[in-house]
């Protein structure tokens, strides 16, 4: 609570247009409640939050959909299967009639509730069911990678910013190097080395094809993007009078970190959550599209787009649907991110 009031004053000192004295009504309330109320009044952000939660709920209900609506196993190849469409029995994969007549064309979208709403992919699997299962993986990877990024970045940023000296110099240089590294090339380098054989160091063992691999890779590559601003924030906090006062009073440093620094940093970290989720979803889809993310027969939105690439001109919905799902989620998260930032931290400048 105290930290938050201090933050308000910091803003005023920094020349922001906020009034120098905090209005008594706001100050007397829990700052988190104030932020939550601001967020609730933000219509666009609330709509986005609801859209995102609906998508999450739909993806979580994937097993229900596969059992009761599509009635097929979305992970098993179904090359010789048949489906009943409009009362007629149709093979799921038909010999292609286009071009040389080579290859197979899977069943197209039926656009009615039941099996193959969005058609089948080139293995005869139900695209709609895979879309829901894929969404679970995309959301799971983005979520856990976000936790890794934010936890790692907060730790590094706070340690570097508060210890200073040699520790800060070493960590900052390390972040400089990671920062300069092109994201996709770093991810590719890590994936190519790990994807075939997995990773085995001491107690940590990740088998190849495990979801943990893309999670860890995506979680690591974005650490410097968050750690740098947090370090800067901690440095400026350490120079503030209320920290100097605490040091002068003989408050132990762990207590200064816990009571004065962390609550101030927490607001920054929360602002990053929706933005990192959006960024991580994009990165996951890109890596899976390049076949170094989620491995077949598992699905994610990126892998389904890749599956659909070969069918792009004959059955475009295989690739179109997951891309729309990604765009919808990322859009919702970006709008929500703007809302959260305005509610919590109106003075920060995020790109």
């Amino acid at each position: 609570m105290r930290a938050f009031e201090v933050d308000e004053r910091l803003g005023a000192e920094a020349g922001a247009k906020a009034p120098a004295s905090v209005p008594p009504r706001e100050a007397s309330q829990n700052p988190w409640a104030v932020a939550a109320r601001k967020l609730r009044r933000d219509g666009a952000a609330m709509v986005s939050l609801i859209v995102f939660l609906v998508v999450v709920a739909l993806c979580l209900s994937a097993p229900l959909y596969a059992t009761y609506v599509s009635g097929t196993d979305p992970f098993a190849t179904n090359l010789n299967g048949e489906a009943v469409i409009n009362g007629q029995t149709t093979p799921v994969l038909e010999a292609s009639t286009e071009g040389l007549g080579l290859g197979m064309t899977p069943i197209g979208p039926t656009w009615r509730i039941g099996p193959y709403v969005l058609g089948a992919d080139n293995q005869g699997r139900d695209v709609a069911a895979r879309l829901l299962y894929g969404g679970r993986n995309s959301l799971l990877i983005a979520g856990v990678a976000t936790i890794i990024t934010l936890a790692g970045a907060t730790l590094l940023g706070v340690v570097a910013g508060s210890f200073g000296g040699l520790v800060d110099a070493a960590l900052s240089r390390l972040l400089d190097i990671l920062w300069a590294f092109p994201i996709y090339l770093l991810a590719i380098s890590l994936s190519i080395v790990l994807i075939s054989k997995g990773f085995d160091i001491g107690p940590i063992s990740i088998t190849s094809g495990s979801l943990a691999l893309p999670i860890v890779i995506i979680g690591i590559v974005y650490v410097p993007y968050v750690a740098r601003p947090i370090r800067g924030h901690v440095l400026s906090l350490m120079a503030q009078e209320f920290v100097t006062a605490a040091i002068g009073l003989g408050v132990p440093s762990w207590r200064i970190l816990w009571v004065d620094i962390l609550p101030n940093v927490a607001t920054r970290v929360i602002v990053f959550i929706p933005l990192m989720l959006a960024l991580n979803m994009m990165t996951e889809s890109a890596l899976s599209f390049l076949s170094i993310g989620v491995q077949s027969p598992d699905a994610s939105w990126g892998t389904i787009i890749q599956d659909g690439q070969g069918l792009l001109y004959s059955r475009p919905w295989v690739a179109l649907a997951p891309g729309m799902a990604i765009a919808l989620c990322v859009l919702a998260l970006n709008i929500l991110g703007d809302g959260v930032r305005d509610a919590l931290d109106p003075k920060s400048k995020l790109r």
Partner: protein
Amino acid sequence: MLVGLVSRFGQMVFVLVGISMLVFLIFFATPGADPAARIAGRNASQETLAAVRHDYGLDQPLPIQYGMMMKRLFVTGDLMSFVNRGQRVTPMVAAAIPVTLSLVLGAAVLWVLGGLVVGVLAAMTRGRWLDRSLMILSLIGVSMPVFWLGEVANLVTQSRFHDTMLFSWVPALGYKPITEDPAAWFKTLVVPWITLATLYVGLYGRVLRAALIEVLQEDFIRTARAKGLSETRVLLRHGLRSSLVAFVTMFGLDFGALVGGGSLLTEVVFGLQGVGKLTYDAMQNLDLPTIMATVIYASFFIVIASFLVDVLYAVLDPRVRHAR
């Protein structure tokens, strides 16, 4: 100024060494598999493995291996691919650079112009319907995965609407060198340019709008208005000028990142044989020497480019010059 430049130069050299060591460690010292087996590619024979071990000095300590690697990349340029037997890596990368540059330069022109138009229009009509719709469109542009947008563009221009007046001029996917046929070069690149630029138009438009709106609160804008200047002139001559600083910094970073591997997804979707596609193909064949080379060359390009941008800044902006 000189002290600042020297220290910035030292920082650049440090980052270059750090990156090359990191890449080296990823490829040669990650626990899990024998680096020789990784470098030799799939199903390599015992002779190839032995050749790799000898070639890369894998029986020697790590620092010597690192030194040998750097020498092959930057001094002799004779790093060999084992998947495409006997193919030298450095000339392959050199041949791919013009393709990537063509793609990124054209897209950069589009996104700078588009970002300027979107940002200025939105700031001028702040809060009205034009501003709202531009900002929503920008957000949608930022939210679409670029490789997916590329596929949609291919679907429209190569298949569904290829036979209509609108897109019948779009040639098949691939790259034509500008030296051979400038018109074909331009035609093959138009769709990739627009695809790649879409994301950045949204991004730059939003940033510029925010910067303009902030600048328009400043005192010197009030003075300009009080002088009786027209609103357009105030916005373009006074407002835009000082908002461009953020714009230029972003541009330097994004341009470097795109040339250094960021355009990989666009190149893959449109079949352009640039540095990114080279990396992607090498990845499909598990051709590690090629990946190592592209990763190191690309990250060096980014680091050196951002150093040059900083130097340019110090030359142009007296405040930066006297900061240190």
